[in-house]
């Protein structure tokens, strides 16, 4: 438990983008992930941000799952 809390307090290692840039790039990043492209190379710092920001991580997971699901 304490390991996880320390990790969350210290956050990701290395450069990361902010929430605004994350939102701006999220659709492109998700489609690259779904196409097995190198999403991190296209949007450097996105993966670190998703590790450090719970809200953006939730929205990333939702968009990835929604984009991967066929329309009803």
């Amino acid at each position, binding site marked *: *438990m*304490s*390991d996880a*809390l*320390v990790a*969350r*307090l*210290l*956050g990701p290692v*290395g*450069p*990361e*983008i*902010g*929430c*605004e*840039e994350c*939102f*701006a790039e*999220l*659709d*492109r990043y*998700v*489609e*690259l992930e779904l196409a097995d*492209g190198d999403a991190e190379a*296209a*949007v*450097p*710092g996105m993966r670190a941000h998703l590790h*450090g*920001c*719970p*809200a953006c991580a*939730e*929205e990333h997971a*939702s*968009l990835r*799952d*929604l*984009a991967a*699901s066929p*329309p*009803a």
Partner: protein
Amino acid sequence: MSTGPAVSVGRVSTAPGRGAENQRWLDALNGSGPQRDAAVAELHGLLLRAARFEVARRRPALGHLRGEEPGDIALQAADDALVSVLARLADFRGESRFTTWAYKFALLEAAVALRRRAWQGREIPLEPERWPLFAGGELAAGAGPEQRELLRAVVAAVDRALTPHQRRVLLAVVLDDVPIDVLAERLGTTRGALYKTIHDARVRLRATLAEGGFDV
């Protein structure tokens, strides 16, 4: 808040058929008359699908919602997202499907609304509730000597190296799981500004620990 060096990001090649579909959306939404009305209605339907998807995804944790409230939240999120999408059409760069780009606005609106609804009427403690447990070592049960030493150093760095604002924001979001949008609303600031506060606090914590000889 890009913290690294500027990096040139190449454009994503357009998948066959995607460009034409994206252009169809842009032409229709930038047009006028019945064609535009139909496109707006189609877009609203997509946004409502996304908002309902987000509400359904969070439904198990939304025991506080009653009756029609989930549907109302989804509809309001779709309405708000429609306004945002139409206002930002010029920002769409065609680097993804138009639908994926539009979906993210509805997901954001729904997620923010649900987080705020979950914290409606709840006070955000001025002093983080779990910090005394953490600082007192009660969460370190079973940790080895090296881990305990790191924990003591982290506690000391949080208490001494951070500004009061950095400490409050970091501990509220990380330790007490206050959603960053909710905290931003209560403090009268933005999510981006608060995340920068968290980022700066983390940089300071890591620097302080490194000065103390920890490899973090």
